């Protein structure tokens, strides 16, 4: 049993920033510097073993100062979760909740009940760093999932295969690895029969397991035979010899853009004893590849929440959900059961939405005391966002821009606000 390699390089501001962006929603002013003082291991534990969950800061409201209606108003579900991402004292809990939302990707497009979707996300949040077994067992009987993948219409005699297939392909085992056959899909569907319930006019009714709809016959799954029920379906997947390697590799992909080597997969799988998520996450966040490897593009909601945190701003407008949708990520509406594609966030259409998000977080505020010095203006513009690390390439271009604009007679205040926009939309800020 090989141990998972651990990072032993410097843990400075840049490493702390990467950790905060990938395991949370970026750094408030001063947060990255403070984290460096803990050293990597304690910094990771500060995120993965947080103090009791609480929300800090003012309650969210829309542009007319009205409270949000997450279960009822379109888009307010997104805003309410974005608010948690901004205000939670334990951002990693929200980040892992987002991971599970992608992993068990359920869309309100098919569910048609914001309340059921919120309930599902609450369940993910309660298990954010807990047991994958609990997540799988809970999501299998979750009303939103039952509607989304037709588990509520999977009946003895005429099974609906939708959930059983995705449970193996996307949730636990992976396609094209020889882990299961089409016969297993059919037999899993039989084992999963029995759930009922529906959404009528956005209200959920009658979600329950109905033994009369369950197929009590003998099923053969992964070569084992028994009178399996839905709990057995879950357990058979979890016990499958190819589950652990799938689980750790998929989890890894949320945090590191390059594939794990074979030894790392093996080491992570050995940490996955008892289906515990936290030890695997901690090993990923302390892995050399996490710090030494290439940058990842920030998902749109992560960027949005992070920019708000950098500015110390809270949810005070309903603009964010539609802008985030244009940037490719509306919460509660993943594109399909496969979730969002982390390799495809950036194109010229989504860049435009990111441009709007950063401009609107920045707002119309104009400084009254802008100096007429390009270097100082640049420093102040970066300071406006809480002093994130900006590459020398970008910094020198910003200074050059300021110099040229001042020379052309632009007002220093306008140059400063222009620089703020350029900092937030820079390639530096799109990636971590």
């Amino acid at each position, binding site marked *: 049993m090989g141990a998972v390699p651990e990072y032993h390089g410097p843990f400075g501001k840049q490493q702390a920033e990467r950790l905060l962006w990938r395991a949370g929603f970026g750094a408030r002013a001063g947060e990255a510097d403070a984290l460096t003082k803990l050293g990597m291991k304690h910094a990771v534990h500060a995120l993965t073993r947080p103090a009791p969950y609480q929300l800090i800061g003012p309650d969210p409201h829309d542009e007319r100062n009205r409270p949000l209606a997450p279960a009822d108003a379109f888009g307010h579900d997104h805003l309410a979760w974005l608010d948690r991402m901004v205000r939670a004292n334990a951002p990693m809990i929200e980040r892992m909740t987002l991971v599970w939302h992608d992993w068990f990707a359920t869309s309100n497009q098919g569910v048609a009940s914001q309340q059921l979707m919120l309930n599902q996300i609450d369940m993910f949040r309660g298990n954010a760093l807990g047991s994958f077994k609990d997540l799988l067992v809970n999501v299998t009987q979750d009303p939103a999932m039952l509607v989304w993948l037709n588990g509520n*219409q999977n009946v003895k005699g005429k099974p*609906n295969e939708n959930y059983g297939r995705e449970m193996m392909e996307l949730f636990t085992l992976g396609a094209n690895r020889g882990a299961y056959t089409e016969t297993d899909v059919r037999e899993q569907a039989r084992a999963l029969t029995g759930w009922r319930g529906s959404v009528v006019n956005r209200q959920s009714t009658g979600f329950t397991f109905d033994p009369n709809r369950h197929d009590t016959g003998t099923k053969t799954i992964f070569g084992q035979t028994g009178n399996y029920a839905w709990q057995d379906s879950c357990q058979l997947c979890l016990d499958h010899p190819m589950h652990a*390697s799938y689980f750790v590799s998929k989890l890894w992909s949320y945090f590191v853009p390059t594939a794990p080597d074979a030894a790392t997969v093996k080491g992570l799988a050995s940490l996955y004893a008892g289906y515990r998520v936290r030890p695997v996450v901690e090993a990923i966040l302390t892995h050399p590849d996490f710090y030494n490897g290439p940058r990842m593009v920030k998902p749109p909601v992560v960027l949005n929440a992070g920019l708000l945190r950098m500015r110390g701003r809270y949810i005070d407008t309903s*603009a964010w959900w539609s802008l985030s949708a244009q940037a490719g990520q509306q919460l509660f509406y993943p594109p399909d059961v496969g979730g969002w594609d982390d390799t495809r966030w950036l194109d010229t259409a989504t860049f435009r939405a990111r441009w709007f998000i950063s401009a609107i977080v920045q707002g119309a505020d104009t400084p009254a005391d802008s100096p007429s010095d390009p270097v100082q203006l640049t420093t102040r513009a970066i300071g406006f966002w809480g002093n994130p690390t900006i590459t020398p390439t970008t910094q020198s271009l910003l200074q050059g821009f300021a110099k040229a604009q001042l020379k052309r007679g632009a007002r220093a205040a306008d140059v400063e606000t222009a620089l703020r926009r350029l900092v937030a939309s820079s390639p530096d800020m799109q990636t971590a």
Partner: protein
Amino acid sequence: MSCYDCSRADLFRRAVARAGRGLPEIEPGMPLPAGTGMTRREFVSRTAGLALAVYGGAALSGRAFDDGIAEAASVAAAQQKTLVTVFFNGGIDGLNVLFPAGDPRYYQLRPNLALPQTVGRPFTEDDRLRWHPAANGIATLHDEGKVSVMPAVGYDNSNQSHFTSRHYYEVGGTDASLRTGWLGRYLDHVGTSDNPLQGLTLDVAMHPSIATAKVPVATLAAADQYTFAPPGLPPHPLEASILQEAANIGAAHAKSSEPGLATAGQIAYDSHHLYYGLGGIRSGFSSPVQYPSSSDPFPHRLAGLAAMLAAGLPVRVVGLTVGHFDTHATQATTLQRDLQLASDSLLAFQRDLEARGIADRVITHVWSEFGRRGAENASGGTDHGSAGVGFLIGTKVKGQQLGSHPGVTSGLDPAGNLKPSADFRAIYAALLEQWFDVDSNAILPGVSAFARPALLK
């Protein structure tokens, strides 16, 4: 035991060429500049000038890009052939699109979903079959001899995962490790390094079938608005300069050895040059025919495509998506709705091409990742199957079915799925050879084993 290929996201994590990142928005309906004294070359240069700016970041000068697009366009206007691929997303139920009304077994398998023998029009090539009423648009074109139907297209040992089977169709082979699309490899074979419009995705993200290894391609999401002034904020006095500088910063990072910075830089550069390139020509387009009115972008995208092709833009292959055809439940209403939209839009597109006099240059290929199970399920739906329905549409196609319908009495495999009577790889090979006049063996691995059907009139 390695899990590196577990998921679709992983498959494509390494697959997507950065060449495909840009999205040149083109003024599609700009009329030919008759009487203005402009040459076609100048017209195209100005129309597509954004594209040279967008994609000029590579080794080529802007001038070379300009020349490349102009040169390609001068060929395009006369003889460029275009292949439009339309993906029916989710695995459309071919057995209810072209339904075996003459097969009693069909009514046993589908007591609730079977269409009555009295609806839809008869399929003139096989009196056992009828068209779903919502497919009337395609049926109309078929009766005019402009549709070759593939009543049971697929491949042996069909994979019933959406993601895997779709991937096979996209890469043009049953190989999960292939990373370029079948159309992308065609472009790598015959395309140029200076014409991104040669491979155009009209969707929110590039279609993997168009992913290239060498040459640039383009993706265009929403054609009608591409402004950068932030909504709800007062205009910034330096707005134009900010955009310009964002592009400069992007360009400086575009060559970074750090892939994340390089991509983000390239996109910033692309976006703003796209914006500049559009300039005053972003005035929409007009269509000579009426398209279905829908909140779904599909008909509008087709209308824009017809206008682009009519404007002589050098587009070789195009990808679009339509529908939610993964009908595990309540299939009857969903299939009716989405098939109607798809079929009506395709009819309008064909009429548009005909009205513009360019129909002989275009073939539309309609595909889906699989068909659905012969028997219905208890949810008023159908589960994933094997062979499904596909179409080739255009004035140049032969208008005769490719393979015959195997029926549901003896045509189902032991799992209850329709057996294929045509292999998608054979269709691809025939399209490449007969429509594009290239050797498909160089593009589709292992395709020499398949007999090529004759596709064209």
